[in-house]
């Protein structure tokens, strides 16, 4: 019975994805205008994405100057090399990719000169106990455990989870940003993160039983 229902209305068939294409059209036009040297297109993109890019950079390195300069260089180089730059339907993803490459280039010069980057947690994730307490689903001890478990995730798992759950990127984009072999491995990374979370909890609050695979 359940099988049949799922078949007639599975998660795979989504009328929405058509709309997604349409809603991304503006990115395409805006990007073209920017590469063609249109000033208001540039300002539009800059105003829209600077904060996001800055926060993204700061998730990779705590060095604000490096992040600032790298964002500058990304925008500068894009315009300079505009003839060789392709179209995109997703500006945010494109800029993320550029910024990540740039940052890693920049950071090479820094590594070794500054010891470790001590209290920086790349791609930090926390579990909002505040909200949990508001909803009074769990007590403080339980939420603290989940919080710790999340903080124990490896940086790569956190990074993948961040792209999917926070930035709303798709698995294909995560694959590209993280240099993975396929979209499936991006999906696996996210799933492993969720499973690790569950496993690292000695005591399982009811909420997390659901992560069990069957």
């Amino acid at each position, binding site marked *: 019975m359940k099988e049949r*229902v*799922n078949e007639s*209305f599975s*998660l795979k068939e*989504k*009328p*929405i*994805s058509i709309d997604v294409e349409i809603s991304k059209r503006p990115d395409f036009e805006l990007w073209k205008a920017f590469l063609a*040297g249109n*000033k208001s297109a*540039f*300002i539009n993109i*800059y*105003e*829209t994405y*600077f*904060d*996001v890019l*800055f*926060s993204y950079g700061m*998730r990779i390195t705590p060095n*604000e*100057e490096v992040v*600032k*300069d790298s964002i*500058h*260089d990304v*925008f*500068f180089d894009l315009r300079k090399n505009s003839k060789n730059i392709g179209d995109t339907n997703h500006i945010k993803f494109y800029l993320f990719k550029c910024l990540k490459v740039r940052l890693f280039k920049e950071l090479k*010069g*820094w590594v070794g*000169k500054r010891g470790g980057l001590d209290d920086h947690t790349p*791609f*930090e*994730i*926390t*579990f*909002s106990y*505040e*909200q*949990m307490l*508001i909803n009074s*689903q769990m007590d403080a001890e339980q939420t603290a455990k989940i919080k710790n478990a999340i903080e124990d995730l490896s940086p790569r798992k956190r990074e993948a*989870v*961040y792209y*999917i*759950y*926070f930035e*709303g990127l*798709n*698995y294909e984009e995560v694959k590209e940003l993280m240099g993975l072999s396929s979209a499936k491995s991006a*999906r696996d990374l*996210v*799933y492993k993160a*969720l499973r690790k979370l569950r496993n690292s909890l000695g005591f399982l609050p009811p*909420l997390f*039983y*659901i*992560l*069990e695979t069957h």
Partner: protein
Amino acid sequence: MPQIKDLLEDLEFIRWVKKPDKDLNLYWERWIASNPDRIEDIKLAKQILLNLKFPAKTPSMETKREVLNKLLKDYSTGTSQRKTPRNIQTSFWNNQFSRVAAILVVIFAISFLFHAILKENRPEAGDQIPSWFFITKSTNYGEKLNFALPDGSMVWLNAGSSLEFPSAFEDNVRLVKLHGEGFFEIAEDVAKPFKVQTGNLTITALGTSFNVNNRDKDDLRVSLVTGKVKVDDTFSEGEYFLIPGQELVYNPEDKTGAVYPFDLELVQGWRNGTLVFKKAPFEHVKSELERWYGVTISTSGSYSTSWHFNGKFENQTLETVLLSLSNIEEFKYEIEGKKVNISFN
């Protein structure tokens, strides 16, 4: 057995939880309707998603402007003048390279300058940059204002109040600053909490509606109509949680607050033009009338300290209000333009 792996991996599901829109709502309502046994799964998956937080460092406005200005300059000259000086020991090669680069940049800049001078020197119209900016909406005494914020949230400003907000909200927070009194109906967006800063309190809301009253002298009041809010006291680092029907009454002087039930009519009346007084002392009635009608009221004679007025006026003129007030409380009044004189016997 609950099973939510498919949901947590489903990008459309994530999109729906984070940024619901009409199409997504429709799709998922249909999905739930055809999979009624999975309502609990949906709820749980939603809970997990909503409580994962990705704390972000946001740039200051100066940083944002600084890079923008540099870029605009660079675009117009075609050269990058970046490199905030860094204290890195550069190697010989790097050093040499940057010297060569610097010389090239200088040559390029000079040739560019010549070029620019030879060309006709006319200012470009598009040079004025509408950089990221703050908008301030304010009301004078006697005025009220209703408008939408960039995210679709609605704001009602009472008389003598102002609200500052950015031309576009940041990616992870919607922060506004309020002086005076305002009512907020917040568009739901769990990924971007809505924060109202007033005095040393910060009110954090998800999708919800509430009234904030922070006028000089008086207690600061946050009254929750629907949803949930959290109020942070940046001074004492204390926090208050409100549920609908509750009001935080905060004393800005001794920085203490307490939560009470509140009278919806009293708090909400101003939005639809209803002036409501409940056991109001004269000073309160006076300042309320001044603000509501944009007048200044002077008094002569003395009034009893036990003066407490109850009354409700729906879209009435000042004249009508004063007339009925004076009948009950026994005083005489004169209205001259924007000035009112009240004399007690």
